[in-house]
């Protein structure tokens, strides 16, 4: 897939996240001083003002915090797949860490592969990785 889909423009703050997905890991930024996670990634910890951070790999497990189902008008590459879902995933290690993604039927399946009527807030989901370009691997989500 992936022709015409929007690719992230990776910046200095977010680069370690995208390095992680290329290796099949869901890495999140954690303060080296106070050990709190933060997202989106940024240079300074808002709780202790440390600029030291590390990027541990997480379990990749979470729950559906919310979801939407997009219908046209959309950009062409997305309109082809509409209606498709987007989900916000609350991660098990810290439920205030929430990632936008898609719930799909299985690794590699398209973003319209799950019937939206079956999606429920609170259901457990598991990360899978989808290479969408030479450099970019997107995390997506499946039912365990």
């Amino acid at each position: 897939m992936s022709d015409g889909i929007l690719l992230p423009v990776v910046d200095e703050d977010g680069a370690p996240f995208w390095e992680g997905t290329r290796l099949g890991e869901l890495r999140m930024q954690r303060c080296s001083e106070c050990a709190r996670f933060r997202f989106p990634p940024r240079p300074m910890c808002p709780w202790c003002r440390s600029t030291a951070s590390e990027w541990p790999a997480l379990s990749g497990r979470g729950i559906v915090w919310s979801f939407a189902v997009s219908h046209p008008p959309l950009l062409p590459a997305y309109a082809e797949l509409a209606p498709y879902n987007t989900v916000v995933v609350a991660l098990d290690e810290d439920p205030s860490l929430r990632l936008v993604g898609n719930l799909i039927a299985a690794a590699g399946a398209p973003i319209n592969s799950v019937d939206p009527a079956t999606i429920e807030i609170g259901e457990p989901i598991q990360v899978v990785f989808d290479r969408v370009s030479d450099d970019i691997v997107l995390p997506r989500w499946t039912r365990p």
Partner: protein
Amino acid sequence: MTNSIKDRTAIVGIGQTPFAKNLDGSEKRLACEAIVAALDDAGIDASEVDALASYTMEVTEEVEIAKNIGAGDVTYFSQIGYGGGAGCATIGHLAMAVATGQAEVGVAWRSRKRGSGGRPWANTVAQLPTPAQWTRPWGLLRPSDEIALLTRRYMHEYGATRDHLANVALACRAHANRNPGAMMFERTLTRDQYMSARWISEPLCLFDNCLETDGALACVIVSAERARDCRQPPVYIHSFGQGLPSQHHTMVNYWSDDPLGAPARACARRLWAGADFGPAEVKVAQIYDAFTSLIPLSLEGYGFCERGEGGPFTDDGAIELGGRLPVNTSGGGLSEAYVHGFNLINEGVRQMRGTSTAQVEGADTCLVTAGEGVPTSAMLLRK
């Protein structure tokens, strides 16, 4: 509070172009037409304008406005960010400038060809850098998609329903049906039509989304003393606030401890602290409505009801003319025009003048708010 701006400035002129899906003329020309109309309304010559304020998203800069309308030396100018969140702040910044003697005649405006000029979300070059790398690749493309995720969660946590959202859409439409200047003046809307409308981003349907409009509006602000000599009765700026909540993320507020804690809450604290009255004394409100679900959030944030009660608040015609708190009496962004919320400001002024097409009897106080879900602003107007 001896240094308060309370009632020390007033809006004395309002102006606007027609609203339509496609207007002739550039945004620059429309802006100048609206500004000159507002100055005529006030009875103030454009050469006296010495303060200008607008949105960072405004394409016509101050130097262009000043040399088109023939302003004199401009000694205060300000642009406020975050899209629709800027609305009331354009007025508030001018009120602060005039109250502190930095300027004497302020003009705020917004001109936008959002009807014919293309959709900002379709510009993929502009939207991909931070923080869009965390949302766009998965197909979260439009403001409607971003707010749909918060709306679904809001409905889940508090039991709000599509009927509550329909209450908002129908109230705005009923008010627009009384306003000959509204884009939806001649188009009625029923609950059945709402419930069977096509989806845009579930749980938001077509009628949960604002209009796409070409148009421009402007306001003139002077001191309370000068206002008494103007052509129109003064509408006093009683209180003003801005709000950028702790750990807030614009539009995609999924990453804070309290994603449904609306920016209105931060703004409201400052707004009410500067006022002589509270929510119970507000007779009419113009509340930012790019999406229907923003209205319950703002009703809660500005203290008209408890958290989670914004949906039920809209029941039984409470936000329609004749109800407890008529909202968006010209039709709002959903049914009059979507010009980044500036039409809400002009309608607030008309309510205080007694000239609205959906006039609330005895209205002497009005809340006007700006974009919800983004760093925002609000003000209280009074007669």
